[in-house]
């Protein structure tokens, strides 16, 4: 029997993996992938809460759709910037993007 706890656990694990990927990966695109994982864990949480706690309402589902749409828009801007950085410096390694520091 799959309960809400299984979904929440999956969400938490996915969030942790995403966070780890986002802070440990060197390639900017891999960092973005980590962030996408984090957002997907949020979606799993929202859908699970909606399904198990308030099966008659759709608030969580709507929230999820908004998160998916906004994440797509954000990634479009981020990838454009990655391409631009790559053209300027021939690298997309976030450790080498370090001209701004004190």
């Amino acid at each position, binding site marked *: 029997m799959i309960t809400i706890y299984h979904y*929440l656990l999956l*969400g938490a694990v996915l*969030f942790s993996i*995403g*966070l780890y990927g*986002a802070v440990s990966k060197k390639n*900017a695109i891999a*960092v*973005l992938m980590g*962030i996408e994982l*984090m*957002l997907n*864990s*949020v979606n799993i*949480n*929202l859908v699970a*809460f909606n399904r198990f*706690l*308030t099966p008659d309402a759709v*608030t*969580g589902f*709507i*929230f999820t759709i*908004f*998160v998916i749409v*906004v994440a797509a*828009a*954000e990634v479009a*801007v*981020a990838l454009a*910037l*990655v391409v*631009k*950085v790559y053209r*300027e*410096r021939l690298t997309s390694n*976030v450790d080498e*993007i370090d*001209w*701004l*520091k*004190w």
Partner: protein
Amino acid sequence: MAEYYLLGVEIATALLGLILLVMGLLVPKTHNKGIANIAIIGFIAIFGVNFLYAGTNASFLNGMYLIDPFSLFFKGLLLIAVFFTCLISKDYILEQGYGQGEYYSLVTFATLGMMIMVSAGDLITFYLGLELNTIAFVILVAFRKNCAKSTEAGIKYVLLSAMSSAVLLYGLSLVYGATKSVLLTEIAKIINQQGIQPLLLIGMIFTLAGFGFKVSAVPFHMWSPDVYEGAPTPITGFMSVASKAAAFAIFVRFFMIALAPVQETWVIVITALTVLTLVLGNLVAIPQTNIKRMLAYSSVGQAGFILLGMVAFSKLGVAAIMFHSLLYVFANMGAFGVATVVGKSIGSDQIKDYQGLWKRSPLMAAVMLICLLSLAGIPPLAGFVSKFYLFTAVIEQGHIWLAFIAIGMSMVSVYYYLIVAKAMYLGQPEEGAEPIKVPGSVQLALALCLIVLVFFGVYPTPFTNLVLDVATAFFPF
């Protein structure tokens, strides 16, 4: 029946953004100098529209969107900030030579996103507004095409803000799970009934981390100096005042309304955040040599002062937050207006290049001095009054030690602000340095900042009454 007239300000802003975008595409490049003027006039008109709603206290779509005095006050603040930004940007963007329409329409959409944020009555609306303003700001930060630093600032901002949004969203999803609602007022009711649960507590901490990023509170401030340095200077000014004020508005609304029943729990975390922000923000500002980085750390420090109002958790605290955020707009826009012109004409943002500025441009040196002194909180300028209210608010609640730290850090801030003043007034300009020509629109902006800072410092009563009224309607304790 939905009452769409309540959304007048937002609809007008969205229309202005679309008009500017279309004009940027249709008008030939040789004739598009007037787009800035249209934006400026448009924002003045929208500010007027905002006044028509004064006294409204209504909600739209069953509480998803709130048009109350608090949100109207912050919308007015955002419109003032964007008005100054357009004035300062006018010649800056003309000299860039591209993207007139895109620039002003993005600025408008960023403003729209922040308006949605300050009016949000539920978590979904708040998230949408937040992302609308963040995405618009990312593009604006990376707007200098030929400058690698600008792109770098943009990519840092988009990666870090996406990560912080994900953390914030995770927190919001847990808050939704713990309370089964996304409406702020409903959340407060349900927490009142069922008390605090572990799920809510974790959600609250994640949310706090997300908000901490948006208002650049230590230890979530790492992005702000880099992004502030790389962004076009008018955008730096706009971000430091408007995006911070909008984030504080929803921060205050979320924690003081939705999470009010568990105030004893979050106040501990926010107090720790306040102390860290005050101490680190102000101390790290001292060794900075770049004026934009110095102002970035000073804005981190200012976020610490505004957080004092949240720790107070009282009517006076909310009033002081509003007072300080509004005066911060004038002081910071003035300082960044000067930094824009100096940076453009000297080609450097180093503090040492401000040597002898008073000989090269007395107006700019005077405005910079007044703005910095106001930020430091020296009487008789307006910054003194607003800091006075913030400190009073925390002392009233018995946190005297916190007020001591804040006053100490306020003195530290005087030191690094006066480093700039010393360079401007005591240093000698280089041999053969020409006087700097200040564009007319920037002169207007600087003069307005100067008048407001001095006027509200000498005679703050009408304004104090206004913010106290708004705070009473918002937080009647």
